[in-house]
């Protein structure tokens, strides 16, 4: 079943359909719970930390992408990749890794498109985490 999910911190983003579950790569809740030894409260706390961090991290990254500031893009993408990987959010992890690699090698031709994809994936992840927190 497909469902509409809200954008990050919002209640509506009807244009972003999402498949729930681990297979879609948005968020593997089972793997996240394994990482924290089954502690649901800690998993919820991590989701909250991640969402809080995004509020400053994404605008900062957008600014760095516009300015083509390779060092800053690399650093921010690297940190985002670490956070997302810890939460078992494979899509965001993969795209952040791609951004980091592009910044590292200086091949920025497609960076706007990759960053747009990251924003889209972040919106989906944000929605899933918000639901996860609510269900907590």
């Amino acid at each position, binding site marked *: 079943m497909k469902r509409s999910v809200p954008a990050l911190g919002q209640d509506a983003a009807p244009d972003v359909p999402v498949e729930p579950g681990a297979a879609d790569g948005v968020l593997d809740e089972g793997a996240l719970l*394994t*990482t*924290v*030894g089954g*502690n649901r409260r*800690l998993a919820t*706390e*991590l989701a909250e*930390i*991640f969402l809080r*961090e995004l509020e400053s991290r994404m605008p900062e990254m957008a600014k760095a992408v516009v300015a083509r500031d390779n060092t800053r893009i690399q*650093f921010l993408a*690297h*940190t985002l*990749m*670490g*956070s997302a*990987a*810890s*939460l*078992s959010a494979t899509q965001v992890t993969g795209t952040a890794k791609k951004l980091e690699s592009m910044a590292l090698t200086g091949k920025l031709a497609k960076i706007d498109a990759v960053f747009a994809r990251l924003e889209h994936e972040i919106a989906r992840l944000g929605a899933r985490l918000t639901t996860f927190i609510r269900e907590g």
Partner: protein
Amino acid sequence: MRILVAEDDPVTRRILESTLGRLGWDVITAPDGSGAWGILQTLKGKDAPDLVLLDWMMPGLDGIEICRKLRTTPGFELIYIILLTSRTGKEDLAMGLAAGANDYITKPFDPAELESRVRVGQRMVKLQTSLADRIKELETALGEVSRLQGLLPICSYCKKVRNEDNYWEQVEAYITSTSDVEVTHSICPSCSERMMREIDGLST
């Protein structure tokens, strides 16, 4: 065992803090390399962490720089260092170990692997501490032995001994000050015989 975790990503830092704390270790956290170095400076000595988990890429001082600083700063040489990173290349591994890290964990880490590697570190720290204590004991013992070895200048006439400060002192005082021996006075058989002869000679 006290563990310092230096990790700029708050999600990973919280996971590390919780996982290691749940296993009974005393965990301190720092949000970046400079913060970690500040904590290490403050806790120098008895309260210093036994093991540090350092993220490779951090703002300010990165994990590699902290490794190098720890290995060249007196008092920190024995700290067990584990580097945390998403770099997986052989060159990266070699670079991390060359900087002074003892071990290496790639992110995202498996909690069971983290525990195992920290336990290996704990065993190493225990072993190093007991070896350091043993060496200290041996050095003390050797120091005592060396005081009783070597040439001992003794006066041929009065039998006083020249000590390390170049003063002549009674042999009893010297022995008492350089060993655990207590001196008691007595007369040996040949001296006793000689003295008796002298007393007899005086009375005749």
